[in-house]
């Protein structure tokens, strides 16, 4: 029985998506960088989902996926260029991660053509999903900055190390995500329990 207990994540698509967001969550150690990554993610995810939804179905699944993936990469490049114009220092430190957005699992999933008419009609859900993921990235950045330095600032100044420096490190990000996910699980379990 215990061997089976921890395998529950395999069927949890949301957790796979969370693992796919790992590179962004780990790098998002401040509000400004969290906002930059979050907004970039929203743009790239929306571009991928819109391409997959709007391209004619006669192109076929494989071609639509390839076109949507390239569209996502182009959107990531545009975001990187805009960030470079607004804040060159932020671009220099974050461009590798901005580019990786186009390859994350949530974006790859958004590149898949909706199979049925009902799936197509629910296309707006993809936008909401992207918005939620973007919010998670931005909030993670703000929380980590607050825990690390005791304050939150829009001006990017690199990793602060005044209060609890580990929160700004990748290890702190993993632990924080794990604790938040556990807290979310506990709340969901409690909510389900109260419904019965």
């Amino acid at each position: 029985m215990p061997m089976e207990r921890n395998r529950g994540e395999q069927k949890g698509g949301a957790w796979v998506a969370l693992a796919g967001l790992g590179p962004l969550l780990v790098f998002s150690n401040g509000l400004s960088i969290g906002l930059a990554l979050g907004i970039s993610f929203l743009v790239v995810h929306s571009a991928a989902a819109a391409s997959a939804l709007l391209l004619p179905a006669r192109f076929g699944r494989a071609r639509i996926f390839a076109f949507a993936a390239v569209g996502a990469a182009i959107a990531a490049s545009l975001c990187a260029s805009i960030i470079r114009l607004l804040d060159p220092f932020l671009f220099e430190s974050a461009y590798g991660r901005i580019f990786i957005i186009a390859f994350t699992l949530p974006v790859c999933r958004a590149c898949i053509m909706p199979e049925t008419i009902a799936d197509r009609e629910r296309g707006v859900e993809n936008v909401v999903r992207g918005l939620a993921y973007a919010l998670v990235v931005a909030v993670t950045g703000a929380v980590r900055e607050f825990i690390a330095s005791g304050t939150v600032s829009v001006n990017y100044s690199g990793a602060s190390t005044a209060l609890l420096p580990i929160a700004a490190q990748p290890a702190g990000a993993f632990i924080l995500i794990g604790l938040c996910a556990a807290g979310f699980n506990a709340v969901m379990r409690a909510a389900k329990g109260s419904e019965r």
Partner: protein
Amino acid sequence: MSIIGIVFYFSLGGNVLVQWGLIPLRGAEKKTAPWGVAAFMAAAAVASTFDGLLFRYVLAPWNLESLAPVAFAFFLLGGFGAVRALQTLAGKADALRYDERGFQTTLVLYAAAMLVGGRFSSVWYLLGGGAAAAFGYVAATRFLEAILQRLDLEPIPAPFRGAPIRFICAGLMALAFSGIDAGFFARFID
């Protein structure tokens, strides 16, 4: 930095899993044959070298750094498609099936290339760094899988089961890796 230093760095503090947060999907870390690991290391070495040379000699001189993802996406997706096509011809895969593990592997190659590509100018260092980054990632995923298999036998509180314990284990492992890197190896090479 010597080649030994590169291997140590990409296995510990500069590990792709730790630095990029690329936690493998459950089941993706199953034991693969040594030739599979070697092929992955070779792919990472080629990707890192291609990325380093592309960025340095093609994109940077033209101030086109922002196009790196498009160029690299073509390279990686092209390579991924070629591998899938070969696997389909060999009867081991379906080219049209959506494969998240394959994408995650491609993402690791991308991370290794980004980690190594901008760091070294020598082709040999790019090759060695890419292979070392892949080796470090494979080693870290094996450690993580071993820890999780052991934890499967423990009565973990319900809210922590699944992804949360996976992230926390990865965090503690990252802490240990960076601790060894900063406390021992960084001083050792100084």
